[in-house]
């Protein structure tokens, strides 16, 4: 177990990680896409709720 954990530590040191710049660039893209999608989805939700209320009366 100790040897395994030592190996994990050594593997951690050689992992290929994204640069901080690339990492936060991706975060930015995810945030922008999510925000735009959320606005559109809220619009769809509110619109559909109105339509369903009008049609079904519920």
């Amino acid at each position, binding site marked *: 177990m100790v040897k*395994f954990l030592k*190996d*994990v530590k050594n*593997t*951690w040191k*050689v*992992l*290929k*990680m*994204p640069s901080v710049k*690339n*990492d*936060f660039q*991706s*975060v930015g*893209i*995810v*945030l922008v*896409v*999510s925000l735009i*999608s*959320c606005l*559109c*989805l*809220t619009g*769809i*939700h509110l619109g*559909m*709720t109105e339509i*369903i209320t009008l049609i079904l009366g*519920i």
Partner: protein
Amino acid sequence: MKTLKAVWKDRDLRKKCLIVLGLLVFVRILAEIPAPGVNSDYFEAVIESNAALGILNVMTGGGLSSLSIVTLSVTPYITSSIIMQLLAVVIPSLGEMQKAQDKKTQRRYKWIIFGVGAALALVESLSMAVGFGRQGMLISYTAWNVILVTAIWTIGAVFLAGLGEFISEKLIGNGISLILTINILASFPSDLYSVWEAINAGSVIGLKIAEIAGVIVFFVLLLAFIVWLNSTCREVPVVHAGKLAGSSTYAQRHEDVIPLKICQGSVIPVIFASSLLSLPTLITTMIGHGEDSFIVNLLNSSNWFVMTRPVYTLGVLIYIALIFGFTYFYIDISINPIEMADNLKKTGATIPGIRPGRPTSDYLRHQLNLTAFIGATALSIIAVIPYIVGGLTGLSNLSLLGTSLIIVVGVIIETKELLESKVKGSLYMEKVYKGGIFHHG
């Protein structure tokens, strides 16, 4: 921005992207239409009492809590894909079909997944209609209503799976993943509203501003951690030596790497672990007794990190153990180090310092185990965060946190990379047609 402009300029890409967006809007419109004869408020209470079911609800875009006509969404199809992946290990003919290169076999394999998905959708719809129908989910529990609701939910699930496959094959992106992502994103606004309400409950303005800033910083850091988890890998160096060209052999060292992602199974281990944990609560709710036993409460994630019932927090340890177990299980069934070592040997490639054959496969297996340990640890942290926040603040089932965010990040980055490669491809073809490549060459 550059990619978006290039996509807009390319007529074919623009058309495909707009159709995909239109279809995703259509999916959300379907998810807003309630199924006939159901009590829409029923499942909200069930999900409130079992946070693990919340993951399923988020994946169906709130379909489960609102009991829409597409309540099951694409989840039966995803379950079917996972089951088939597991079966491919035990049934050799299925394994061969899964790895087949020819389109005919690939199509047949997809149809099998589709068929199993449809069967699962039928079983799930019927179990829900019968099990929860008599508990109050159906406004009137009659045979006709059970058949009607079962048929609608099954058709809804099959239709969405077909739509997902249509997007993947004829349009752009992975259709099933895109539907899953749009469903998860659909629950973000209500989550944001819950967080806003919790913050707004306080009376000191300065504290409110600090809380909002804290939430934003925490969210951005969590996103950065998930992006890191998605992109980090262990690169195992490989050396290709000696190539044969015509009648003369020339020795050319060509260095390459085998990337071993630390999060090979993505969210699959968490989905397996949550599904297994939610089973006892789900079964006791369906049969109507045994809900108060210690084991059921221990496995019910709604009881974790709740200050008034600290003993049940021990259930988290079982959850983490299951995530680790399923991570190793997934790697074991999806990656074959012996096959990888054989392929390296066939192509004349070696890992520096490791002999070909058995030592190479042992080395790769060990490296996979090490990277899986790091991946499972990171995955456990992300999976547990919503429960800590839920237990401490009372805000349960936040899709903004945790594993659903891994899916959103993964799909958005994957789609962005796909669009970039398509744009590059079409620009290259444009150059070829204009003769630019040859003039410059």
